């Protein structure tokens, strides 16, 4: 006889017989399970925090390296001053109107120090001692 669930009476009887057996008891420790679960959740949180800290450290290190790299393109202060003074020295060119050393020597031989040409020195300002004090 076919039943509604596709089983015949013999199979239903077998179901009943099997249901009369009870599974062997099992030992479960819910307290240990709860403890382990708490530990796992805590470890997960700690791992998340550690990852966040690591990420921040990497970001900070990257930004520091980037900033240092940017400042390396302009020279340090000391080097800048030295190169400026070097450039000043290099930029010195003699005035073509200035008497050469040979002319000056000839003039000295002929006329002594009076034969030397006058220089274009700026006017000297009288320094008053009172102003300094």
């Amino acid at each position, binding site marked *: 006889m076919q039943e509604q669930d596709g089983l015949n009476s013999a199979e239903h009887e077998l179901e009943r017989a099997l249901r009369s*057996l*009870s*599974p*062997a*008891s*099992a030992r*479960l420790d819910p307290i240990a*399970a709860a403890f382990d679960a708490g530990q*796992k959740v805590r470890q997960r949180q700690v791992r998340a925090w550690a990852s966040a800290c690591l990420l921040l450290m990497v970001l900070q290190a990257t930004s520091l390296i980037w900033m240092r790299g940017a400042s390396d393109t302009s020279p340090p202060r000391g080097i800048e001053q030295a190169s400026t003074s070097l450039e000043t020295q290099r930029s010195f060119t003699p005035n073509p109107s200035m008497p050469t050393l040979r002319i000056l020597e000839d003039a000295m031989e002929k006329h002594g120090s009076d034969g030397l040409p006058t220089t274009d020195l700026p006017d000297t300002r009288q320094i008053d001692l009172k102003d300094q004090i």
Partner: protein
Amino acid sequence: MSELDRLAGIVLAHASKLTLFARQWLDSSSAEDVVQEALVSLLTLRSAPDDPIAWMYRAVRNEAIDLARTASRRRKREQSVAGQRQEWFSASPESLIDARSAEKALSQLPTELAEVVILRIWSELSFSQMARILQVSQSTVHDRYVAALTRLRSALEQPCKSKMD
């Protein structure tokens, strides 16, 4: 009553059934370990599953199959089984069938048939729950169940071989 207590209570009520389910692949102590591990995993979930029992059976099944596949675990299991054998069912005077015969008949079934019988008979799950756990259609589960019962019946109806034979 907290959510954890509720979940633990539900699982405890199904502890022996879950262990019986895991026994298809593992020895009794490993089966208990697997159920315990599944309970830990259930309690670590951020939100409880809609059907905690179905979730537990699924977790136990996956873990038990993984463990059974491990060769070292298998050796350990064989040693354990050889050392101390624990029955699948507890003997009871109200039983309508011999527990050992039932265990033997069940263990001789292919796993996909035995698991539907265990889930249906002792875990009292619906076909839709079983289909979710086993990830097959309800009709497949039903077909397997009918096939399993047919095989079980023929296995249990075979007359015991006497010493005279």
